[in-house]
């Protein structure tokens, strides 16, 4: 600043001189003016005042000038100080220049020092040359030329041995993750394997550092049934490089290795699972399964055939910075409880996901039992052969087993259905049923091949089978045609699937109906007309009805006056009621003219425990005599009546008849035993059953050919004819076989007709 400040100078003397000069000149001017004024005209003469003023002005100006000059002169006393400061400034500048030069020279000196260093001598090569007279390896700097350096043959073995020792030592000091199942060292190469996931070959010597690992080979062991997944060469190299680099800086290199490769395997596995599920969803299992990706922040659902738009979370994509391997949720049995609500969470599902510890776990939505082990089902994914369909099928089989087991337990509690241990049985059948899914070959998986069904006894050896459809999870009922009409089975199945009734109720109803059907068949065989619902309408008083399942049989040789009502009570024992109905021509007031229903006028319970069988030729009614008399009076009179006689000797009881039939001890061996449970009145349709033929005919002439008895006169019925035990008292006979009465054809020309 001093340099800048003091640049332009002016001499003080000059200034003073000029100031003085100017003042003098100004004065002279004044004088001139006044003199000119004086010499000139009088008119131009300046007045005194003016002169004064001029003079004063001059004085003032001069004074100003002088004052300034004075200040300047005073200031000039500081000039030496100023000079000194300027000197200092220049000194400082020179110092600064010196410093700059010093800095520069230091910098260059530093450069020079580098070159002043002693050179690095290749001591190891020198020693080698001294000792052996030649050198095996060129110096390291020559490596950049690019010639390949391999060991000589004789050196190979010991070197490999040394390397193996080194590798082993390093493995001992490194922390090996516990998931690594196999670690072995051969020829300097460490083989590290995790079962079912990957296999890596390692050695030491990453970029010349002998404490760092190098990866020689990576192989993945996860795969599908086509074999393990193949890593491409380039990808393997890139992956290997990256892992090597990370291992070099990590404290636990093997842990890092494991983590990275494990995560890779898990991703592969999940990808495969998702892909397989998608294939299944569009292929065999279309509309039968539904899959959903499960992850932290958001879900994306894909269903059946249509793709719902994926919902994106805040990050926008699945693989964002907070990437977690997504899990998969597979719903099966989609129709279940799908009662109008869009909520699909009620169908069972399998969740396959990678948990926190990066292990893949398959979970089922509910507790299911494995039929083979009777313990909780363990759905595990075999990583080396990933098969999602197998998992699904296993889950379905276990779920089916569990459900059937539950129903079995429920049924067993009910004494109407389960009276012996073999009444309700869970069976595994080798034979596949038509109603279930077509069997697909699966190696070594038994559950698929065996279709489990719950076998519930109807009666005797007839069973009703309850199965579960693999695809839909719905119940399937099946029974032999002769015990139940198919429509009844289908209706029950539908009701069961809609969950409108419980399985217990279904089976009770089906059992009832089957037994009633058996009765009906028997009745038809005996010539009784079985009425189905549409054929007849009867107004039956509700007090005698046990339920809605009952059978009405009529006697065709009577004009619709009497009906036999047959039903089962709460213990599934048959209960018979005789119904009397007024018909046309009789008391019309009893007929409901609005509907066609015939009103039951009288009814009487028939207690078969006390039923007596008529003996000898006479067609005896097996009912109370008293009753018979009552009825008799209502009859038109028929020749059969006369055959009713009270004087029948000891009538054998119903049970004794049966005993005879079945070959048990009889009351009177000579008696012919009749079995008839369809004749309250005089039509004596009796089927003579017995050891001996019955000679006399019985029955009114109007009996038609449908009846057996006319031809059974000479019938010899073998003792193999039996009635089902349920017709007797409480399961006295355990071995019931045939459900219909049959007569050996060889002995008689009887015509069997079933209406």
């Amino acid at each position: 600043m001093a340099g800048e400040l003091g640049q332009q100078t002016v001499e003080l003397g000059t200034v003073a001189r000029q100031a003085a000069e100017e003042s003098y000149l100004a004065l002279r001017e004044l004088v001139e003016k006044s003199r000119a004024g004086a010499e000139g005209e009088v008119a131009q003469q300046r007045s005194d005042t003016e002169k004064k003023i001029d003079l004063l002005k001059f004085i003032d100006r001069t004074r100003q000038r002088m004052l300034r000059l004075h200040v300047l002169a005073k200031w000039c006393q500081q000039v030496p100080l100023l000079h000194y400061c300027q000197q200092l400034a220049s000194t400082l500048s020179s110092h600064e220049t010196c410093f700059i030069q010093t800095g520069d020279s230091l910098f260059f000196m530093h450069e020079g020092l580098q070159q002043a260093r002693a050179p690095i001598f290749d001591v190891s090569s020198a020693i080698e040359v001294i000792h052996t007279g030649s050198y095996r390896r060129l110096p390291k700097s020559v490596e950049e030329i690019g010639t390949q350096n391999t060991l000589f043959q004789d050196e190979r073995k010991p070197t490999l041995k040394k390397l193996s020792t080194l590798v082993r030592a390093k493995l001992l000091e490194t922390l090996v993750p516990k998931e690594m199942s196999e670690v072995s060292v051969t020829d300097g190469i460490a083989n590290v394997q995790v079962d079912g996931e990957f296999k890596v070959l390692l050695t030491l010597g990453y970029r010349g550092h002998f404490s760092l690992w190098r990866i020689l080979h990576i192989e993945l062991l996860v795969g599908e049934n086509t074999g393990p997944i193949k890593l491409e060469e380039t990808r393997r190299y890139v992956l290997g490089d990256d892992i090597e680099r990370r291992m070099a800086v990590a404290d636990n290199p093997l842990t890092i290795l494991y983590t990275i490769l494990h995560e890779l395997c898990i991703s592969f596995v999940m990808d495969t699972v998702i892909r397989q599920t998608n294939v299944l969803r569009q292929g065999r299992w279309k509309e039968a399964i539904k899959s959903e990706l499960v992850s932290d922040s958001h879900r994306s659902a894909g269903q059946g055939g249509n793709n719902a738009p994926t919902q994106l979370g805040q990050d926008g994509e699945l693989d964002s910075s907070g990437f977690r391997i997504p899990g998969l949720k597979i719903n099966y049995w989609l129709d279940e409880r799908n009662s109008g609500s869009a909520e699909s969470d009620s169908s069972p599902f399998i969740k396959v996901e990678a948990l926190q510890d990066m292990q893949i776990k398959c979970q089922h939505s509910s507790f299911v039992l494995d039929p083979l082990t009777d313990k909780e089902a363990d759905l595990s994914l075999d990583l080396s052969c990933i098969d999602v369909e197998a998992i699904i099928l296993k889950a379905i089989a276990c779920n089916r087993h569990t459900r059937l087991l539950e129903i079995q337990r429920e049924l067993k509690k009910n004494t109407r259905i389960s009276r012996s241990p073999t009444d309700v049985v869970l069976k595994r059948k080798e034979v596949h049923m038509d109603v279930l899914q077509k069997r697909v070959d699966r190696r070594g998986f038994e559950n698929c091949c065996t279709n489990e069904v719950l076998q519930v006894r109807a009666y005797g050896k007839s069973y009703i089978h309850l199965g579960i459809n693999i695809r839909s999870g719905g119940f399937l009922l099946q029974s032999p045609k002769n015990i139940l009409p198919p429509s009844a089975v289908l209706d029950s199945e539908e009701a069961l699937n809609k969950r409108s009734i419980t399985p217990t109720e279904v089976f009770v109803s089906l059992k009832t109906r089957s037994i009633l059907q058996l009765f009906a068949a028997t009745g038809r065989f005996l010539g009784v007309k079985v009425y189905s619902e549409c054929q007849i309408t009867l107004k039956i008083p509700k007090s005698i009805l046990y339920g809605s399942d009952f059978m009405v049989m009529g006697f065709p040789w009577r004009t619709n006056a009497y009906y036999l009502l047959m039903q089962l009570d709460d213990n599934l024992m048959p209960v018979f009621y005789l119904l009397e109905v007024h018909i046309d021509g009789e008391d019309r007031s009893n007929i409901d003219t609005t509907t066609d229903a015939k009103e039951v006028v009288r009814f009487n319970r028939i207690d078969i425990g006390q039923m007596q069988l008529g003996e000898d030729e006479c067609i005896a009614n097996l009912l109370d005599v008293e009753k018979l008399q009552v009825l008799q009076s209502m009859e038109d009179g028929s020749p059969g009546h006369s055959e009713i006689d009270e004087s029948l000797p000891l009538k054998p009881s119903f049970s004794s008849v049966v005993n005879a039939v079945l070959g048990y001890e009889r009351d009177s061996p000579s008696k012919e035993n009749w079995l008839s449970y369809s004749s309250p009145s005089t039509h004596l349709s009796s089927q003579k059953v017995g050891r001996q033929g019955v000679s006399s005919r019985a029955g009114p002439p109007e009996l038609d050919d449908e009846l057996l008895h006319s031809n059974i006169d000479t019938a010899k019925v073998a003792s193999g004819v039996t009635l089902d035990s349920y017709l007797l008292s409480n399961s006295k006979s355990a071995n019931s076989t045939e459900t219909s009465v049959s007569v050996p054809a060889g002995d008689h020309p009887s015509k069997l007709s079933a209406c």
Partner: protein
Amino acid sequence: VQGVAGGDRPEDPSKQNLAQVTGSIQKTLGLLHQLNLNVSSFSSASQLPLLQRLNALVAELDTMQKLADGCNIQVPMEVVNLIDDGKNPDEFTRDVLNSCIAKNQITKGKTDAFKSLRKHLLEELEEAFPDDAEAYRQIRATSAAGSKRLAQSQSALPNGDAKVKPEH
């Protein structure tokens, strides 16, 4: 300002000259003042003194001029400008001083930095090359002692005591 007795001599004339010029200016100022008084209160009696004074003024101006010839003090233009502007010319002086001080501080900082670098370097050198550093120290000490003696002989105070500059 270092006042050294012997060194004033060449300056003296200029100083004297300056003093003379200043005196002349002062006289002029005084005369002008009196003239002013005269003129402003002019009466016929004051004609003569007026003329006398005028003459005196002219004479003084002349003196001043003559004196001014011997004056060769250089005055920076800034000062003249300052005076013309009516400001204090000492401001200029002050600015010069301040800039000087600032520069001094800067250079001092650099000096200190170099000193610490030297110290650090010596420490490292001692660690790396102890023998060489020792040799260096000895050389340095010898030369320092020599230069100290030289400095002492040059800067001896009148009473014989040596001026000691703190050695680093």
